[in-house]
């Protein structure tokens, strides 16, 4: 799998928001089973996918993530009974919104990984990392972040015009 010899030009930054009961434990299992996967992922632990606010995903992209993974318990397995069901709807909607403003949804992955699915964790993380690597850096948000333009300054023609017409 991912070995020391393989060097890439681009190492994507991947952030994983996971629930503590299923996916975090699944990732632990991948560890105890000594499975190997790309070291690009940084895991943030939540009690439940229900706690994960869409703002966090947005913020992660803004702060330089090239790919984001959200993962929790399979439907019916939620430690809190219904947190993942609520999350599923919330993210179904948020995903559509991000897609609508032009974010390539290949950078955003959702998955159910149970505490027994160490293999699936490795698969999901590897797949996302490699997919994002092939896509290259997430330029859109970084460019926005770097843009210095202040839209409220009276330099834009529209505002200038509006100002003059008062």
């Amino acid at each position, binding site marked *: 799998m991912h070995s*020391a010899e393989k060097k890439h030009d681009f190492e994507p930054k991947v952030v994983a928001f996971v629930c503590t009961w299923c996916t975090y434990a699944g990732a632990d299992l991948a560890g105890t089973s*000594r499975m190997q996967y790309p070291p690009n992922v940084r895991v943030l632990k939540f009690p439940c996918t229900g706690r994960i*606010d869409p703002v966090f995903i947005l913020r992660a992209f803004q702060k330089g993530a090239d790919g984001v993974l959200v993962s929790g318990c399979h439907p019916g397995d939620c430690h809190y009974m219904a947190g993942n069901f609520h999350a599923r709807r919330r993210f179904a909607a948020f995903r559509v919104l991000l897609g609508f403003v032009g974010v390539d949804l290949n950078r955003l992955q959702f998955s159910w990984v149970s505490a027994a699915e160490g293999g699936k964790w490795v698969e999901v993380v590897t797949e996302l990392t490699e997919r994002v690597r092939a896509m290259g850096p997430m330029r859109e948000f970084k460019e926005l972040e770097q843009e210095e333009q202040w839209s409220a300054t009276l330099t834009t023609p529209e505002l200038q015009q509006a100002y003059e017409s008062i």
Partner: protein
Amino acid sequence: MSRIGVFVCHCGENISRTVDVERVAGEAAQLPGVAYSCDYKYMCSDPGQNLLKKALAEHNLDGVLVAACSPRMHEKTFRKAAQSAGLNPYLCDMGNIREHCSWVHEDREAATAKASDIVKLMVERVKRGKALAPITVPVTKRALVIGGGIAGIQAALDIADAGKEVILVEREPSIGGHMAQLSETFPTLDCSQCIMTPKMVDVANHPNITLYTYAEIEKVDGYIGNFQVTIRRKARSVVEDKCTGCGVCTSKCPKKKIPNEFDQNLGMRSAIYVPFPQAVPNTPVIDRENCTMFQSGKCGVCAKVCGPQAIDYEQQDTLVVEAVGAVVVATGFKLYSIDRKPEESPIKGYGEFGYGLIPDVIDGLTFERLASASGPTGGKILRPSDGKEPRQVVFIQCVGSRAREKGISYCSKICCMYTAKHTMLYRHKVHDGQAYVFYMDARTPGKGYDEFWRRAVEVEDAVYIRGMVSRLYQRDGKIVVMGSDTLVGVQVEIEADLVVLATAVQAQDGADLLAQKLGISYDKYNFYSEAHAKLKPVECATAGIYLAGACQGPKDIPDTVSQASAAAAKVITLFSKDQLERDPVVAKVNEKYCVGCLQCKKVCPYGAVEEKEIRDRQGNLVKVVANVNAGVCGGCGTCQATCPSKSVELDGYTDEQIMAMIEAL
């Protein structure tokens, strides 16, 4: 400025083999807010823990991060160590650089960089951590048991025997439930009443048990340790304190032709009645819908003949409020009625079996009453239509169960065994009669169960035909059973005198409504959901509520009794402390900013959010806000993700902590 201590563990070589732990510790020291960092071979060992405690004191640390294995492994260990050194345990966190890093990556450079990142993220989290104190909740040491069948009786007796008070509520006029209706029980064929009635008497006589029969749960408020339950005691029209149970009223009642529900409508009872002779309490009840006094105002015989003047026609329903600390739900089951169902019902009927039209097509419970020595036929198997002894009886299993096309896909679990029992009871009473059983599979796991079933087949000569029945119809006083024998591969037709359907076990009527009152969840069949199918099979996800018996799913008597005792043990465990202590990872509402849109209430899986009125000093309502009941909150945080203004916050996972971690990416 925070003073965080970072402790990087080698875990022998488990971490240090792929992660340069010294470099991680060194880089951690450079992070703003980190006052101390070091690395050590085994942080979880005694010397490691002592190192942590010592550093805490020496460097006056206000937060600790141990970068080592998964917090699922040792978070408790280090929090305890930190606590013993005077730090609030919730200010101690772990960075997982073993399972999530050293064990899953080979590239030392990349793994070290990742480990440093993990430390950086977690330091941000620790910095913004809050000292939390465990939440304590007082416990009222009285239990409510809902349902007076064998499950409720067993749970109530166990709890009461442990010296705790129990309120037992039963919807019917007597406790006993379905088990009281049974003739003999598998796999030992002992008489159900013989083993059941002593327990019923124990309940009646137990000093710690308050029994409310003919009563229903009206409302449940509160949470674990502190429930307030309103019980509706339906008007019995008989004053329990005065009634001596002499039975004169029932024998003098002029209205005696009312089908007796306890005998599955085979026998008759009077309008004032005791459901069955061994009823507990032995206090009659007036069935107002069938009583001449209530319907026409003319009669009053029972009042005239009652010596102690216990009859009260004016009696009204009364509401009783009881404070309890735990609830055991044991509402049992009902049998699937296979009439043609209305079109909108998800459960379909079995019109093709002519149930309800052909009088000699009966269900298993009716057969129990026919076979029972105290039943309407005195224990003789006589068919309902003409009272003749049936020569050929066909039993059909899985009627409604395991029938997706009819709307129920589960196995009712008890039918294989009770059908085998029925064939034996029939054979014992009609020696030359022949029993046929149509079955899908014979499912007999359980101690002595398969032996029992084999006895039915091999010794008692029941003919088992593997296949389903497509249709029943009457022809010349017989019931023609059209079915298939799938093992032989032929269609079979049997002319039966009596057909017994092993109809599916279903949740009690109104199970969903009771669940809504209790705030517990139920599946699509209205069976109550346990908190975890394997590891918490008697607990509800709602703390302080436990399940016993067939209300959770089809169960036989041994399983029901086991679960009832287990539920009782859970209740007794809960009552062993004066106060409950629980993890303080719960949501809190910022009342200043909450606008009371109550979206949090709508998504809370625990029903922990309630409305709270904020009033000024004059008592005028200022606003309504959400309020989280810390005793009930499970700590999932769905409320916070839902709240538009983030006016509710989950301790231990605050937005501030998470945002800081994202910033540090």
